[in-house]
């Protein structure tokens, strides 16, 4: 146990820790989707708020029986907006008093502008007013965005993507005919289901984008710390001394355990921090929602909570594998720079594996999954298992070699 603690202590270099924290901060702020969600996402900035309110009223799914309640909620928002619209002098002058009227006017002006038409000064002012109302005028802007979010549910129902009837599902018929038989059956079953998930597209998109970056942060933390520890040991000439005694040889095994454990610990830590940030952003409302809907096309009926746990598990497993791989590289590298040089392609290979394993996980959207349920399960495991097996076998071989080593 003492050896274990002593080896673990070697992994914590203050300078390295500061560098990793700065690196993680840059990756988060520059490339992750979470810091920008939902404010700057392509969806609405009020998405979590309005969907959260719907989930509070109707639960994680919306059933056919609850539709009148949903429309009532939507009409409530429209009424609130229509109290705001007459406050604009320009809207009043142009006879825009209803939500429908506002949408029509905006659409007309946008079409004219985008098709090369020349807007008159009055039209320009009206378009500017429309945009001001959408983006800057509160609470009208918030209401408009919330209505846009609800409109997505309306359209899904109207076009047979959710709570479909025999009539509405015909809108999706071409698509259903285009995909494979097994997937078409699954999709139709989903579209005709008596309940639709209230999970929007973005919470899953954010995770899909960020899983890779989370693992990159883990790799950076694991590779750099493990390499520093092992190569320093080699340079200080500790290995031949360790190989000379039975207790010394145990250090090699303990180091491998420490590296794997460190990888797992970093993975867990990163996932916990990310999870806390995600919940803080309002994703907690969606935890019980089924993940499978028109926007998030999955083969299985996992909840968002289960999906998050699966992704976190993937990050932790790959981080642990990175720990083992970096142990292999660290033991074989003669110096820091060669260790870093070997770690770069290893990290890229692991990153590619993470990307495909998490993107394919139960997903029905990717062409890679061959449009079969089994492939969406088998392929992620087919990617993950060989990597873990390779890492474990590599460590095993190095340790076996160490058992036969002697000072001479």
């Amino acid at each position: 146990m003492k050896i274990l603690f002593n080896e673990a202590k070697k992994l914590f270099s203050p300078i390295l820790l500061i560098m990793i924290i700065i690196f993680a901060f840059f990756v988060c702020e520059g490339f992750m989707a979470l810091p920008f969600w939902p404010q700057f996402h392509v969806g609405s900035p009020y998405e979590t708020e309005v969907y959260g309110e719907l989930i509070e009223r109707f639960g994680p799914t919306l059933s056919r029986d609850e539709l009148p309640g949903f429309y009532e909620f939507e009409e409530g928002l429209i009424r609130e907006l229509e109290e705001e619209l007459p406050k604009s002098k320009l809207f009043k002058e142009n006879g825009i008093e209803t939500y429908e009227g506002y949408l029509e006017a905006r659409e007309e002006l946008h079409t004219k502008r985008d098709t090369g038409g020349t807007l008159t000064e009055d039209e320009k002012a009206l378009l500017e007013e429309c945009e001001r109302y959408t983006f800057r005028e509160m609470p009208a802007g918030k209401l408009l965005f919330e209505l846009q979010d609800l409109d997505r549910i309306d359209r899904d129902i109207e076009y047979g993507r959710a709570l479909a009837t025999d009539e509405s599902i015909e809108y999706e018929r071409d698509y259903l005919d285009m995909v494979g038989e097994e997937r078409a059956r699954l999709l139709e079953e989903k579209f005709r289901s008596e309940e639709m998930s209230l999970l929007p597209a973005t919470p899953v998109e954010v995770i899909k984008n960020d899983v890779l970056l989370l693992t990159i942060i883990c790799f950076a933390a694991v590779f750099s710390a493990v390499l520093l520890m092992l190569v320093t040991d080699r340079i200080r000439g500790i290995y031949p001394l360790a190989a000379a005694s039975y207790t010394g040889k145990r250090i090699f095994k303990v180091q491998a355990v420490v590296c794997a454990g460190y990888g797992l610990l970093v993975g867990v830590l990163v996932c916990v921090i990310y999870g806390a940030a995600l919940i803080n952003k309002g994703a907690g409302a969606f935890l019980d929602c089924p993940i499978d809907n028109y926007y998030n096309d999955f083969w299985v009926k996992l909840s968002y909570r289960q999906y998050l746990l699966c992704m976190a598990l993937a990050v932790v497993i790959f981080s642990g594998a990175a720990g083992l791989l970096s142990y292999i590289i660290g033991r074989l590298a003669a110096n820091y720079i060669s260790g870093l040089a070997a770690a770069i392609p290893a990290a890229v290979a692991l990153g590619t594996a993470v990307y495909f394993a998490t993107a394919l996980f139960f997903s029905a959207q990717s062409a890679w999954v061959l449009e079969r349920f089994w492939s969406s399960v088998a392929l992620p495991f087919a990617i993950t298992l060989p990597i873990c097996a390779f890492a474990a076998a590599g460590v095993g071989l190095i340790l076996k070699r160490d058992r036969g080593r002697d000072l001479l």
Partner: protein
Amino acid sequence: MKIFKNELKKLICCPFLWGLLLVFTAFDVVMLLNDLSPGNYDYPTMYEAIVGSENADEGAAEYYRDFYSYYSTVYDSLDMNEIFRQKMALYYPEVPQDSAYFRWAQRNYAELQERVESIRKTGEGNGDFYPGQAFLSGERLYMPAFRIHRRLCGLLSRSLLESMIWAALAVLYLEDFERVNAAEEVVFSTRQGRGVQLKKVLAGALYGLSGAAVLFGVPLGTFAAAVPMRGLWGTSVSAFALTEPTTFFAYPFVTWAKMSVLGQLAASLGLCAALVYITVATCAGAYFFAKNGFFVMLGAGVAFLGTLLLPFAVPAGVGHTLSMMSPAVLWYSAGMWFIEFDPARGRWFEVVTVAVWTAAAAGIMRAGWRRYGE
């Protein structure tokens, strides 16, 4: 010279650098072939149509004729002042119109407008090239088609990053060699011994640039073999045939000065070599302070990421333009050099950035060396 040769030999005999070079080159070639081989991009067939060969496929020839006639008038209405107005409103709405910075950017675009008029007058924009974006039934689709320019940009961007990493590893390996082999006290206890460190920088730079030559040369050779370009290298980068959408805009690449595709590539390669040199010199200089290649390499990675993100944190204005003047930002926009791209960049943006950083790298080296000597 003997020491220099010995240091170079150390690098040549280093297997991990060769391994990494091989991995990077293979990766580049695979990525490039993947880029070039989507089923519907039949380069040889389109090439025949572009050069007006007698054996040209009729469909491809018709496509190219339609494309050409559709875009042939694009310069008649191209107004860089209007593009400036739109870009400022979109990207930098907070810049006051009466500020010196705004006027500077406006002057740049006025200069570009003159350049557009010159292109219009001289017919520079009429050259033949692979179509930059798709075109169908008289409707403009913002869907890229052959995108040669973009593929070249991707190639430069990948190779440049790899070259910088490779060169930094090479120089740091040499610098760290004595420390790692516990010979530091013996070698650096004399003035001549310490002087070896400078020769290491030179050897590292030479080896780094040689590696960069491979990392750029092999993908470019693959590109030249896969895409027929005879007679097209001389086409102006500003030819409307090359037009590809960049973010929300789609108009020809307006270069600050007349520049052919080959000319831009050659100038870009020169800039890449300078950036590789800057990386080597900065890492070597930083090593003299840190005396630890591992931390220098990690620090360089963090600094690269930090300078890449810095412009997002700095509000529009002079500070923003200065924050963009870094090797990381240059790398990010690799391939779009010498072309109008962002109102925060002026005519000499790339050249000034490289000059400033070359001076800065030399300064770091000098300061580090003085400290090291002490």
